[in-house]
């Protein structure tokens, strides 16, 4: 069985097994058939639905009725659902971009909502604010440095955390 998750709900995982007669999703058999390259046919509430899908590495993009969904394949031996790296105090880049300004320093105390740094992407500037009260533990990027989507931009630690 393969572990899959929807990209925007990474805490929920599904066990899927492709068999010749059906695809089992968490134990429920779902009947679909491939109608052409990248095209599939299935049923929803008695209606026939056409879907388009294409895989790229560990991500599969599926479109149903014009709505496209990203599904990720997870290696259960590597993935952990206890938060993205860094835990609750880390902020991650919502999109690729560049650091415009850094407003705090490592060791500084910050309160929830305090501005920590300013980033820019696609001409759009965004302020990254503290998601909780804590001490700035990591500032991995300098002004002018570029980053990719989901890269960690800053990490705060609370008094309960280890270093």
């Amino acid at each position: 069985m393969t572990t899959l998750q929807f990209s925007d709900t990474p805490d929920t995982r599904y066990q899927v097994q492709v068999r010749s007669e059906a695809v089992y999703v968490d134990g429920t058999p779902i009947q679909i058939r491939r109608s052409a390259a990248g095209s599939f046919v299935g049923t929803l509430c008695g209606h026939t639905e056409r879907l388009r899908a294409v895989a790229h590495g560990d991500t599969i993009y599926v479109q149903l009725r014009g709505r496209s969904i990203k599904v990720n394949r997870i290696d259960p031996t590597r993935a952990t659902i206890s938060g993205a790296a860094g835990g609750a105090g880390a902020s991650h880049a919502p999109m690729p971009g560049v650091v415009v300004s850094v407003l705090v320093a490592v060791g500084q105390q910050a309160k929830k909502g305090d501005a920590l740094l300013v980033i820019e992407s696609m001409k759009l500037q965004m302020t990254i604010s503290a998601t909780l009260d804590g001490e700035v533990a990591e500032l991995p990027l300098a002004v002018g440095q570029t980053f990719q989507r989901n890269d960690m931009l800053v990490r705060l630690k609370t008094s309960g955390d280890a270093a």
Partner: protein
Amino acid sequence: MSRIISKIDTTSAAYKKNHAAMTQKVKALQTKVHKARFERPERDIERLHRQKKLTVRERLDLLLDPGTPFLEIGTLVANKAYGGDVHGAGQLSGIGIIHGREVIIHADDPSIKGGAWYPLSVKKIVRTLDIAIENRLPVIHLCDSAGGFLPLQSDLFPDKHAAGRIFRNQCTLSKMGVPQIAVVLGHCTAGGAYIPALCDYSVIVRGNGGVFLGGPPLVKAATGEIVTAEALGGATMHTTVSGTCDYAADDEPHAMAIARDIFANTSPITKQTIDRVEAEEPFYDPKELYGIVPTDWKTGFDMREVIARVVDGSNFHEYQPDYGTTMICGYARIWGCKVGILANNGVLFNDSSLKAAHFMRLCDRDRTPLVFLQNITGYMVGREYEERGITKDGAKMIMTQVGCTVPKFTVIVGGSFGAGNYGMCGRAFDGRFLWMWPQSQIAVMGAEQAANTLADVKIRQLQRKGHELDAEQIAAIRDPVLASFEAESDAYHSTSEMWDDGILDPVDTRNTLGMAIVSSLNAPFGEMGYGVLRL
């Protein structure tokens, strides 16, 4: 092979009587099975939820391939022991399918007395691993036990086939190259800690999983050290510091996904080949079995009618159809696999014993697995038969049967009494599996016969002292013996003590045998060889 011609009249009074009685028996079985599988005290379920644990069957659903069969072993073990609420002895065992391959599961059931090991729990685990060894089935251990049930420790610890045998079996499996994966879902304390340690791979759940030779209370008592379970033997410590466990899982579904992934990376083996074709449903309806076999074992029936409702297409090639007619021998297929069937149709005589021995040798030589359908009161007794060598002939049958290295499977369809049990591959004779029907009986002799014999002895004893007993007094001696014998001959008693691998609904016989036979092919058949036959 050709189709068995059935002579059953489903409209007859006898059929209907049998059907009604067996239906009752089956319903009673289903009720008991359901209770053993699912009924749990509220507070035990609540505790599971609080601990974020799944029930043992929910764990199984996540572990096994969806929409595949599961052959449970010993569902009703301990149903007559320990006050009757240690269902299944707190253990779930069975053969299931992962990635299309057979595995055998040993799972502690934490909703039964915290998964504590009673003497019968240990027996069940040892039996599970014995099955794994004999059939070379990969083992998945779902560990979640409170440890040994101390009040009964003398019955579960010291003896040869007690708890130590679990670990000895694990080592044997490892040496044989049979993969074992442990999923630590609760505590593995003391001896239990060896289970993951002796497995090829182990997964441990954060928070709930713990592996330690001594738990926190014992450690404190022994050295005064105060330490939490998590720090002493939790997931993080064992997967990063000690290396005792290999993978840490965030929760139970994650643990099962990891276990599946590990299993996918073990290499499948090439199975033993046997004569096997595409399967075919029996021609006759298996439900008719309810009307064919009487619930009173003393009433006879034609075992061919049973065979006809278990085998593919109801096709049967009978061997020596006119000789030794109290023993039916022949070839059939079960789920496509060619098997040799030996089935009782009466008492065993010289000719039926010799026929059975010859047939078993044919099957063994041609690598045909053997299926024994028991309904036997014993070998014929009497001077004529002794002079003709009935004891020698029975011995030849047993000697041959033990020498066979093809897998043997036994179903006790009616009665299984005395030496008849031996010749027909009873429990002691290394069959891969043995099951009983709900109304079947097993004892050294029938209860009535035993009660009469013992009463006789007592009566004559008293007579020698000059006492004559009236009917009431005789009954007072005889009836308790009868009752006790009946209770101990009962299928439920047998299954409680795990003298068998489970009680089957008769209609499940075919699937059970099919799954067992195909699973047994994971082990290569041994070299042929027999002891000396007293000719």
